[in-house]
């Protein structure tokens, strides 16, 4: 948590000088992947307080007004898709603070004298945002909202009149329609600067990508301003992108001569080719990956030369490549700020195209990747659509130090967990209770989901397994989505490492789960109504028939019948009986009337 705070404080530092910065970090990853981190930050004009900001400057007015009208203190948005391969790529960029879980995630501190008010404003906010970002955030209702979870704490000192709301939509598929408004918020609107690289087709044809927006007010003696930081992290599959670049976006077989074969095999021939694991040599340009080169510097960007980064060099760079000696770079346009073996930074020049080409004959040599301090894997166990279990495995790779984490999980209400069935087991320890604290609020049908938050301690070099059972319930016909048989998504669990020092801070999400609920036959309403009602009527009719009608010996009837002589007589007799019918008989007739 402190980690988060510190990072935001850095951000604040950068923002104190009113202005706009954009940075792009390119980091080749093993197996021909490339991590591209776009980062844009800007802030509004100064004002006595956030509420009286009227001159937004380059800060997008649309957002500013939403935040103001909804009385939001801080707003954070995350869009993410794909799967981050921690074993290959190491820890998430910037300790995962800006990487969201699958789908859309939003949390905000809302001001309000009491909870109800704040909550009302929260729904206002998400509705407004959903319009702004073309995301169905308006579906964040009470069943998907959690209030004041431990895992998040405001980056600016919070006070009693602020409430934290968190909501997520795992089902939401992130795509171009979310990217466009995202880019539109930037001062250069993607026409100039590195934002001109943000082309939906390329960004979303990636192995993993995450967009984040953070709106934070910061106040100093000089006054208050609203800061915004936008980030996009993308892991591209270089080879695939190149193929797409070269010819149609389909895997047309390579010509035989361009196959990379293992000649050492004795059967190797013109028609037998054992493929080499991965292309050792690769050469590509930014324009190959993103479809175009950076066309110019964004004129609205001010570079501030006073600020130095951790390398003791000018932080006002635009584009940095993090590489090793095995790589050689060559640029077109722009100016070189610094060039080491490990990283080379460039800044853009106005009205000048910039392109950077990477070239190596050993793709496996990449700048050292930092390993995540914790691994988590969550999976659904069991069989059938009535009961199931959830198994979460949290592993502490460090051989020396224990870690303590907060694990935060929200389950939809139609998933009924049994806390009493929860078991925790730490590998290598027979009796070690990892659970320090547990916060739990059971679900309430159609009102709220289950909220579970645990503070856990995981000993060094061991893994913790948490598992519990749950029941699946039926929904009303109208509550099923159109594609009910796909299943229902369970939003990712959030794991946050508790640490004092910012560099140890880390937050990561599990992948979302697919929950298969039992489904009715959607074409049945009328049949069911009819059949059930029929059975009920049948029961009613027979029971009341027996209750209200009187008994007679058959022979008596027969005698009567014969006595009356034939049909006419019978009719007469029946008629008479009607008149002289006793209480029961009346009732009987009535009942028959109702039942038939």
């Amino acid at each position, binding site marked *: 948590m402190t980690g988060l705070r510190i990072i935001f404080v850095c951000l604040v530092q950068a923002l104190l000088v009113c202005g706009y910065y954009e940075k792009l970090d390119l980091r080749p990853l093993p197996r021909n992947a490339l991590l591209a981190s776009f980062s844009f930050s800007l802030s509004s004009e100064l004002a006595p307080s956030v509420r009286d900001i009227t001159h937004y400057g380059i800060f997008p007015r649309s957002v500013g007004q939403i935040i103001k009208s909804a009385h939001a203190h801080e707003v954070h948005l995350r869009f993410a898709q794909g799967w981050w391969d921690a074993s290959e790529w190491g820890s998430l960029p910037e300790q995962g603070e800006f990487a969201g879980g699958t789908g859309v995630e939003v949390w905000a501190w809302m001001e309000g004298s009491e909870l109800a008010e704040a909550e009302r404003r929260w729904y206002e906010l998400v509705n407004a945002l959903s319009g702004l970002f073309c995301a169905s955030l308006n579906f964040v209702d009470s069943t998907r909202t959690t209030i004041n979870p431990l895992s998040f704490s405001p980056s600016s000192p919070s006070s009693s009149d602020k409430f934290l709301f968190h909501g997520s939509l795992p089902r939401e598929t992130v795509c171009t329609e979310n990217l466009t408004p995202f880019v539109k918020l930037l001062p250069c609107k993607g026409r100039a600067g590195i934002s001109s690289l943000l082309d939906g087709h390329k960004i979303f044809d990636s192995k993993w990508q995450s967009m984040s927006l953070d709106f934070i007010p910061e106040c100093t003696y000089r006054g208050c301003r609203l800061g915004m930081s936008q980030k996009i992290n993308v892991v591209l599959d270089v080879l695939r992108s190149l193929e797409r670049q070269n010819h149609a976006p389909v895997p047309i077989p390579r010509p035989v001569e361009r196959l990379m074969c293992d000649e050492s095999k004795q059967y190797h021939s013109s028609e037998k080719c054992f493929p080499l694991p991965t292309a050792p040599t690769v050469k590509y340009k930014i324009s190959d990956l993103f479809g175009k080169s950076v066309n110019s510097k964004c004129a609205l960007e001010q570079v501030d030369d006073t600020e130095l980064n951790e390398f003791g060099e000018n932080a006002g760079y635009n584009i940095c490549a993090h590489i090793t000696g095995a790589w050689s770079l060559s640029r077109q346009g722009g100016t070189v700020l610094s060039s080491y073996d490990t990283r080379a930074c460039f800044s853009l020049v106005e009205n000048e195209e910039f392109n950077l080409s990477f070239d190596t004959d050993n793709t496996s040599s990449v700048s050292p990747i930092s390993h995540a301090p914790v691994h988590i894997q969550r999976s659904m166990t069991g069989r059938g659509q*009535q009961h199931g279990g959830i198994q979460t495995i949290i592993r502490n790779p460090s051989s020396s130090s224990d870690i303590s984490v907060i694990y935060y999980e929200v389950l939809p209400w139609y998933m009924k967990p049994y806390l009493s069935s929860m078991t925790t087991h730490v590998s290598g320890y027979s009796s070690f209770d990892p659970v320090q604290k547990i916060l739990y609020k059971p679900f*309430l049908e159609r009102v709220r989901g289950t909220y579970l938050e645990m503070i856990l301690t995981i000993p060094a070099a061991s893994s913790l397994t948490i598992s519990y059972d749950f029941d699946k319930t*039926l929904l009303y016909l109208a509550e099923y989505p159109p594609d009910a048989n796909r299943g229902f998504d369970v939003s990712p669990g959030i794991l946050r490492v508790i640490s004092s020092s910012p560099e140890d801070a880390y937050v990561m999400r599990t992948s979302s789960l697919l929950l298969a609920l039992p489904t*009715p036959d959607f074409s*049945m309403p009328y049949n069911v109504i009819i059949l059930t009602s029929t059975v009920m009527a049948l029961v009613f009719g027979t029971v009341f028939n027996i209750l209200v009608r009187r008994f007679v010996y*058959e022979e008596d009837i027969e005698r009567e019948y014969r006595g009356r002589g034939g049909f006419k007589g019978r009719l007469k007799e029946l008629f008479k009986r009607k008149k002289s019918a006793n209480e029961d008989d009346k009732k009987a007739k009535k009942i028959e009337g109702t039942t038939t």
Partner: protein
Amino acid sequence: MDEQKRLLNVCIAAVLLRAAISIGFPAIHGILDQRVELTTASTSFKQLREGLHLYRMGVSPFDGGVYHQAPLLILIFQALDGFYGSIAPNSLAINVVYCVLDVLCAWFLVQISTSESFSGRKKLDSWNIAAIYLFNPLVIATNLARSTAVFSNVLILAAIRFATYSQFLSVLFLAAASHLNIYAVYLVPPFMILWSPTKAFSNCAVTVLLYAAAFGGLSLLGYFMSGGSFQYIKSTYGTLLFFSDLVPNMGLWWYFFMEIFDSFRPLFTYIFQLYSLIYVLPITIRLQKEPLFAIVSILGVTLISKAYPELGDLGIYISLLSLYQHIFTNVRYALLSALVIIHALVLAPNFYHLWIYLGSGNANFFYAISLVYAIGVTLILTDTLRAILRIEFDGGEEPQKVVVQI
């Protein structure tokens, strides 16, 4: 004397059987507890444990959708846990308690059969009656599933047994039963006849007041448990009344309310509740001379008309019918209804399996079987009702004469 010995042997055998199964297959409790035919939201032992767990944690079990049973049960099992240290479904304490409860039920049944309402009637030997209850697969399964319905059942039987001996106890038992299983309220009218055969108004008033007082007292219990709020009423009785917890069972409700259009749901909720209520008075009135059979029949009706029925109820119903051997002269469809019920009982798990686990069948399969089951129960119900009325008609003097209803 020999009679008594046999009865004793039956009970011992029953206890041994239960113990053997519980020791032999410790997992069976969990498996049966998950059978929707055997346990429901209002009787599931797993949910009871969850409720207790939450209560221990300081989270109100009533503020949430997981626990829909009476507050009293939490207290009972907390005490049990405190006393023995474990309420695992196969732990000794639970085994003992549930065996005792079942044997009590059987004993009450035997007692009832010896009460004067059966005097001078042809009836089965008491050990037969006990056996029919104790070795009824439905009863055994319900017991092994640790369904909490066993508690309300034993209370109802106790209420019947004491109805003619000690009104006071009987009233208390019925109140407790109603606290655990709200549908027991339906039994009040016939019980009124049992309590005050003279139909003296004062007497009736007293008993009713006493009943209300006892029921209220128990309700307060929940009030204090959920920290001075009547929140629990919503989660305990509200769920039963408004059927908010939608889980398949052998009843008529679940699929209907799953498929019905939202705008009509409240209306039909009322209609269904009314439907289960509407039988009470007519049956009571018609069977004034046989109040006990009125109780049995009302239990039989609620079998199909209540929101969360379970097979254990059928077990009790059959056992109670076994007290009435003398009416079987006039039962007509025994074979038919037996076959229908058996087929329903066998096919229900099968179709459920097809729907939930294999995915090759759909919900309609299980629904269809629940309808068949309802019809089977109706057959028994109407057949026995007719039989007893037939006896009442001519005191069973001329069994060979054919009788019709007009």
